[in-house]
Structures are given as structure tokens and as C-alpha cells.
């Protein structure tokens, strides 16, 4: 999976959402702090990850806000993915003192979105493999 492939996939999925210029869409979502647009960005990222792993997951995403009264997004997202069959949390990270079940990424530009897709895909793939579910073999 290269950055170019991720970029292409994101653009293909975004065109299904009626978005012509994804770079501009993300930029304007960030500038206008539009919560609905941020929801769309999160969904694009999730769809792209599923596309690369060729599986569907149960997702929860949190759009973090700088101001909880007015829900102004600050550009940070937390994603939780769960496997629909075995209920395994695929965004679990055991690296720090905290048992972190979500993957937190900042998305303010198209490049950030590409990085988010790559980070999530690698994390989920690694957790699938740790759980004895080779994501390639499991699809067959």
C-alpha cells in the first residue's frame, strides 16, 4: 500500500460521496469547522481502510472538539474498529501504560487523511494477525 494508492482510493470513494476536490473539501471542512463535513471525512477514512483490508468492520469515531459547548472540531479523530464476527477490538494498542482501544489521528489536510488510512490499516492488519486471523486467508 503506497501513499499514491491510498490517495487514489480516497479520491475514488469521495467521488461516490459527490466530492469533486477532496483536498479542497478537507481544507474547507477544517476552516469552517463543519461537524457534518468532519463526519464525512471520518467515513471516507473508514471506507478506505475497509477497501485495503477487503473487510467491513464495526466503527465508532469520535470527532474531538475544542469547545464542548459549541462542538467546534479541533481536527483530531479517534477511531474504534471492531470485527463484526468475533467482536475483537482491532484498534487496541497495548504499547503504553494505558490500554488504549482507539486510534487517534489528526486530519486537517489530504495528506493527513492519507496518513490516517495508512496508520489505521497497519494497526488493524497487525491486530488481525495477532488474533490468528490472517486477513488475506480469512477473506477466502
Amino acid at each position, binding site marked *: 500500500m503506497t501513499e499514491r494508492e491510498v490517495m487514489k482510493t480516497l479520491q475514488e470513494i469521495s467521488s461516490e460521496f459527490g466530492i469533486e476536490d477532496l483536498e479542497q473539501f478537507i481544507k474547507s471542512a477544517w476552516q469552517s469547522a463543519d461537524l457534518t463535513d468532519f463526519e464525512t471525512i471520518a467515513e471516507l477514512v473508514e471506507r478506505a481502510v475497509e477497501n485495503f483490508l477487503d473487510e467491513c468492520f464495526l466503527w465508532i469515531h469520535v470527532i474531538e472538539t475544542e469547545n464542548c459547548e459549541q462542538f467546534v472540531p479541533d481536527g483530531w479523530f479517534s477511531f474504534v474498529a*471492531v470485527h463484526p464476527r468475533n467482536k475483537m477490538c482491532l484498534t487496541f494498542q497495548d504499547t503504553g501504560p494505558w490500554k488504549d482501544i482507539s486510534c487517534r489521528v489528526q486530519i486537517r489536510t489530504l495528506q493527513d487523511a492519507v496518513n490516517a488510512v495508512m496508520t489505521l490499516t497497519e494497526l488493524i492488519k497487525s491486530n488481525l494477525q495477532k*488474533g490468528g486471523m490472517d486477513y488475506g486467508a480469512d477473506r477466502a
Partner: protein
Amino acid sequence: MEQIGRERIIEVLEEVYREDVAGDPEDSFQSFLDDFREVRDPEMPIYWIAETIIGAVERLSGRQFGWYVEALKDEYNFTGEFAFICVEPKTHRCLTAMTDDLGNCSVSVILPITAIDEAVRAVQFFLSLAVEANKGGEM
């Protein structure tokens, strides 16, 4: 894990709240819940409620879990409901993931916690998930 009674759960909720959450030996979880229910002040540290529940579950079960919590809001204020996701750290199994009779899946559970009885029910619910997880082995 033996059945844990209401009084013991309240005792642990109060201990966790005083020792780990509020850090004030004079404070009480029950009075914090009463204040929240009556005032609904958006400036209140609402997540203290969830932290107390989680602390009590982990203390009573003797185990740690991975958690995600969100305090739900209506248009203006916190509703007193919390969305919880609980993950068993060894198997990575999401204990709160459920499939209903129609095949609809959900990852989180939403629990109202605005009174001590609701807090007790929330702790009992998570302890029952911990018991189920234990039955699944790998613990």
C-alpha cells in the same frame, strides 16, 4: 466470581470516588450524583461518574480492561447517559459488542447513571460481562 451485593458495590463506588477520583476523603459519590441530577451544571466534571464506575468494576473484578467512554449530550447539556466500550486486554475482545435478534450490531452500550441505583446496575452489568469473558478462557 461470586455475586456481589448492592451494599458492597456502593461501598467500593464510594471508596474509588474518594480515593482515586475526587481525592477528597470528605466527598461522597452519592452526593456528587445528587448534585449532578439537580443542577446539571455543564461545568461539572461529568466524567468523574464514569471513572468511578470503571474503578469499581476493576477493583471488584480484580482485573483491568480497556475502556472508551463518552458522556452523551442533548442540544444543551449532558443527559446523564454514558456510552461505554469495554475491551478485554488479553483477547482484545470487545465485551460491549452485541448483536440483536435482527442481526444489528453495536459496539457500545449506553447506560444512564444519574443515581446510585443506576450506578450499581452499571457496575453489575460490567461485572457480568467480566464473568462472561472469564468463561471464554484466556484470562
